[in-house]
Structure formats: structure tokens, C-alpha cells
């Protein structure tokens, strides 16, 4: 059981770090810290959990709907309905005044609780949990592999769904139905449809596919809490020469990035390898924040976990980390293009876990 593995590791790490108790916050946007500590992924409302050094976990939820779900999904922890969530946890913390309490993620802890840091001996332990979140156990990697397989299957559904006249949100509707039927409880996905006017991806806006459009997507199914991501671009109809040329560059860049991944490199090394390809083709400008956010990122219990793959991020990449390498950015002639694969970092390289061909796909008109 992944949950048991994580819990043992968490408690051992807490003991080693001298942390008596952890206060963890989570919601449907940033739920990785909470999921690690409780095995619960919040969907509505907010959640706070207290994890004691002896392994007792109390999960406070302000939504009664979520309480029902947590009681069934997480039978081994204490689940409490707390309509006045913050006040109730504030009161609970009073009982642990003499303990060393860590909290995470520090930036999202409600202000009222964070304001009592001195009073409660509360310290920000985000970095402590980040280390656990980044370095995966075998069972965590196994879940991520399952998610990667479903990312491939999901992209096949996406390609089948893409045809002239369909709206962008209809494509996503097809994928979500497939995912619910196949064990994916959540999916992060953004999309871009069009040509040079498209500068990024976002949720669907109702655009209908037409001949010549590039359709970009970042598809990120979650299995047992773990996300894997795939980024691909397709063209409605036959790709033109510029689109093919651009895709060849993206492929070269992604493969250059993947080629340097191994235990001991830094996030910056991977980004630099990707960006050097763009620079060599005179497109270095398009690797900047004006046109792109990151050149890849960590994957796990959060879609966009640390480390971010950027040339100014010197986080060491270790065996057991899971990442996506994606040189997604804008191309001045064809528009925004994406290509990315998920991988597991190994001692001497990496194992790419998504298997969809690295093609510029086309769908018949």
C-alpha cells in the first residue's frame, strides 16, 4: 500500500527531524502535502490535518460532503467535520502547546493559524515535506507508471475526438468520460487551438476546430493520487512545412533535455540542454518567460511539483524523482507548440514512461 509506505517514511523523517506534529493544509488546487500525510485528496472546501509523531492522523474538513468521502476513502484516520475549520483547528492546536509543530505548505496555511507561530512553536516545514514529495518510493513510481499508461490511452481518445467542427471543450468531455471509466479520478488539462495567434494553452474557450489548426494539449491523469503528463500537438489536416520544421526542433530540444537527465545533474542542466537547441536555431528568445513558463517540472502528488526545469533552478536531480521534460513555447510562424514526456530519473539516465510516438499528429479532415 502506497499510503502505508508513505506514512512510515513520514513518521521516520519526523522523528529524525525532531518534529512532534505536522499541521498540513490542502485543497483541490494544492493537495499534495495533504495527500502525502493523510491519503485524502480534497475536492471541495478546505482541509487541515494534524499528524502526530505516534502516527495518529486527524483530518478536519469544512464540507460535510467531503467528510462522507474521506470516511470511506481513508478509514484508518480520524475524520472530523469542522464547519468552522480554522477556529476548530486553532482550538485543537492549543492542546499541543508544548510540542514542536511543523506546518506545510507554509504559504497556504491560513493566516489566523500562521499568526500563532511563536505562541504554538509552529515552524514552516515546507522544505522538509518537499524532499519527501520529490524523492519517490517504488510504490509511488508504480502508481505514476499507471498514470502514464492512461495518459497515453487518453491522448489516443483525444486524437479520435479531434475533428473539424468540434469545440475544444467537447474533446475534453470525451477524455473525462474515458478517464472516469478507467480509474482516473482527476485530470489536469489545458488546450490551445489555432495558429500563430495562439500564445499558450488555457481551459477550453469554445473554439471549433478547422482545417490547418494546431491543437496542443497537456494531459495529466491522476491514478492513486499520482499525476503523469503528456504533451502533444496535432494538426487538423496535413501539417504544412513550417509546422513540421518547428516540430522537428521541439523534438530535438526535448530529446536533448531527456538525454542529460540522470542522478546528480541539476534542473538547470536539463533546461539548458533544451534551450541550447532553440538558441542554435536562432530562437533563443522563445525560451524566455515572455513566451514560456517552464521547460518541464516535477510530477507526483501535484501536477506541477518541484523542481521547475529552468536555467536558474539549481536543484539537484536525484534517482527516484519523476519529471516531465517539455520544451513548450511559442513559435513565431506556427504559434504555440508542445511536446513532452514523463520520466523516472535513474542512476545512469532515465526511463521515459509515456509511450505515445513523438510525432506531430494529424487528423483527417
Amino acid at each position: 500500500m502506497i499510503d502505508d509506505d508513505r506514512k512510515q517514511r513520514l513518521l521516520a523523517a519526523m522523528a529524525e527531524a525532531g518534529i512532534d506534529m505536522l499541521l498540513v493544509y490542502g485543497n483541490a488546487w494544492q493537495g499534495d502535502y495533504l495527500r502525502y500525510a493523510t491519503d485524502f485528496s480534497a475536492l471541495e472546501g478546505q482541509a487541515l490535518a494534524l499528524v502526530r509523531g505516534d502516527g495518529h492522523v486527524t483530518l478536519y474538513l469544512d464540507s460535510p460532503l467531503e467528510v462522507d468521502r474521506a470516511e470511506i476513502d481513508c478509514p484508518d484516520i480520524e475524520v472530523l467535520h469542522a464547519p468552522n475549520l480554522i477556529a476548530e483547528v486553532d482550538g485543537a492546536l492549543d492542546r499541543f502547546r508544548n510540542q514542536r509543530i511543523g506546518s506545510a505548505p507554509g504559504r497556504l496555511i491560513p493566516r489566523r493559524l500562521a499568526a500563532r507561530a511563536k505562541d504554538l512553536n509552529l515552524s514552516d516545514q515546507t522544505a522538509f515535506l518537499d524532499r519527501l514529495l520529490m524523492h519517490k518510493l517504488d510504490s509511488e513510481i508504480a502508481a505514476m507508471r499507471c498514470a502514464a499508461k492512461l495518459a497515453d490511452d487518453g491522448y489516443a481518445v483525444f486524437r479520435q475526438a479531434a475533428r473539424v467542427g468540434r469545440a475544444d471543450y467537447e474533446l475534453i468531455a470525451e477524455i473525462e468520460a474515458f478517464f472516469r471509466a478507467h480509474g482516473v479520478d482527476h485530470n489536469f488539462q489545458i488546450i490551445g487551438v489555432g495558429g500563430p495567434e495562439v500564445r499558450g494553452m488555457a481551459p477550453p474557450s469554445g473554439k471549433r476546430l478547422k482545417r490547418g489548426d494546431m491543437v496542443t494539449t497537456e494531459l495529466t491523469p491522476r491514478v492513486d493520487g499520482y499525476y503523469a503528463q503528456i504533451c502533444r500537438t496535432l494538426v487538423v489536416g496535413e501539417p504544412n512545412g513550417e509546422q513540421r520544421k518547428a516540430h522537428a526542433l521541439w523534438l530535438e530540444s526535448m530529446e536533448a533535455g531527456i538525454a542529460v537527465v540522470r542522478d546528480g545533474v541539476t534542473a538547470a542542466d536539463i533546461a539548458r540542454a533544451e534551450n541550447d537547441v532553440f538558441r542554435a536555431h536562432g530562437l533563443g528568445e522563445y525560451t524566455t518567460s515572455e513566451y514560456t513558463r517552464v521547460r518541464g517540472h516535477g510530477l507526483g502528488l501535484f501536477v506541477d511539483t518541484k523542481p521547475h526545469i529552468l536555467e536558474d533552478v539549481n536543484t539537484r536531480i536525484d534517482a527516484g524523482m519523476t519529471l516531465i521534460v517539455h520544451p513548450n513555447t511559442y513559435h513565431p510562424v506556427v504559434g504555440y507548440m508542445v511536446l513532452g514526456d514523463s520520466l523516472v530519473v535513474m542512476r545512469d539516465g532515465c526511463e521515459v514512461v509515456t509511450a505515445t510516438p513523438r510525432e506531430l499528429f494529424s487528423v483527417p479532415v
Partner: protein
Amino acid sequence: MRRGLMGWDEAELPRSALSARLERLQAAMAREGFDALLLYTNLVRPAAVCWLTGFTPYWIESLLLVPASGAPMLATALSKRVADWIRTTAWLDEIVNTPKPGTAIGQRLAGCKRVGVLELDALPAGLYDDMVAVAPKIELADASAMFAAVRSHVDDAELKLIEKADALAVAALAQVDASATDAGSLAGLVEKHARLAGAEEAYIAIALDLDLDRRLIQVSGPVPLARRFAVRASIAYKGAWVRRTRSFARDPQGARAMASAEAWLPQAMHALRELLPSRGYSTVAASFALLRAELHSQMRGWMAESCVGSYPLEVIASLPMHGKEGPAPGTFLVLSVELAIDDVPWLGAAPVFLRG
């Protein structure tokens, strides 16, 4: 993360409606002596900012500053490249894209003395710290009650959006066949139908075996459905949320009881439109009493949700934790009811617009 249709259609949400909301809010701020008001938004708490501007973040957090007069300013951690997308979804003249929205807001608050914050206790520490680091002398006060009072009245534009969301939920649940045996596929079918019709978000929950356990859970993958089950569709359309729950049975006794309850639900909801504001929550049970008399049924519980702050829907009353007073006229509620009809468990939920 949102992945359904998102976009601002002025025919659905006219600027005049948003202006009127802003005007009402700024009038309330003046009465409270606030120089500005801060509204936080993220994926889970989007409702207040959406009500005022139409904007819902699909990702990451933002903070809206409502000045004492003039247009609001959104400070968002969404990157600059996304600013154009935000403008396609909302009425926002000023958007500041910054990794530190709290700092940007703090800088803008220079000169303010007293600032209201919706749900002040819940403001994330990072935003708060960044804000007070640049605006240390500002007095922050919780403005949740003031906001709830202004926001409780549902205007015509919001009413139409809620009705549209409800129509999507009704149509999606109409896809359910009582003979279904796999919960994961069923959840996918309902969700797909809602999304194909333009839902911004769709959360589908299922009680797999009503005779054993009436709790509704999120289901994915192959999971068997018992002969009696219930499906809840929580659907968002352009920021307006509703819930609908329906129960289904394959056995004749169960199907009969559920059909009776389902036929009664609209009548009960209709009665509650008038009764709730005037006579309070005790009328919820009374509205189902006629059904009880007819079918020997028993009220096991009910829950009323509304939008009063940053959550799209939150519980404002339930059995047995309700006060004597009912909700204000002009309010919108989702009422979820749990009955046993001739010993057949039944779950239902539907929206109610209280006569204003």
C-alpha cells in the same frame, strides 16, 4: 482544475449587471468605513471574485482589490501570457501578473487606513505576509458578513446562469439508466454529457448501494452498482453552481417509491420558495409531510447550501443544526433531502429560488 468551457458572454453576464453589483458593494463598504475590500480567489474559493467580475482561476491564486470607488484590480500569480485569456473570461480592466500578488496589492493599498477582507482568517499566510510587509500600518477587518448581505440577493443575470447550470445537471442525470451496473462508466457518462453541453465543471458522486450506505463518493474505474443507488451532479456553468441528486432502483418496490418522491420534489421545492423566508427552516420537514402521509415515509435529514462568500456552495443550515430564522427573500439555495419511503432510502437535491 477547471477544464470545461470558460468564457465571458456579455449577453449572459452584462456589464450593467456587474456594475450594479460593484455599486452595491461599494455602497456597503462606505457604510462600514472601508477604504478598500480584498477578495481572495482560487480554484476552490472562486465565488466572490466571480460574482463581481466573472473571473474564475483555473489554476493558482489571485487577489482582487475593490477600491472605495472605481474599478477593481486583480493581482494574480497566473503568468503575463495568461492575461489575455483572463480578459476573455471576465470584466477586468486592470490585471497585474506577478509571482507575489500580496506585494502588488500591499503597494496599491498605500494611503488606505481600514481595509475589509472577505474571510480574513482564511487568507493564505504567504499572501498576507507579502501584503503587510509593504503595508504594515493598514487595519484589516473581516468583511464576510457585509459581503454576504450584499451578495445574497440573486439578480436576473445570476438567476439565468444558475438556471442554465441546473438545466445541464438535469439533462446529465437524465442519462442515468437504473439498469446501470458500473459506477465508473456511469460517472463518466454523466460528466461527459454535462461537459458536452458546456459545463465549466462537473463533479459526479455516487452512493453505490443505498440500502447499505447513503454516502455519495467520487468514483472512477469499474465499481459495481447495487439495485438501489443515487447520483449527484454538482455542475458549474460560467461560475454558477448547482447540485442535483437523483435516486434509482432496479427493483419494483424501490422504483415505485423513488418515482413518487421524485414527482413530489418539485412540489415541495415550489412550496418552500415562499415558506422558507417567512416561516423558517422548520418548514422543510413540513413540505415533505404530505408525501410522508401518502407513502409512510420518514425524513432522515436535509441540508441547505447557498453561496455567501468565496465557496460556490456551502452549508448554511441542516437538520438538526438550523436556527429559527429562515434565509432572506431573494436568496438561492440548493436543498438536499434524505428520506426513507416505505423503508426505501431516497436521496434528492434541487435548487430553490426564494421569492424576493
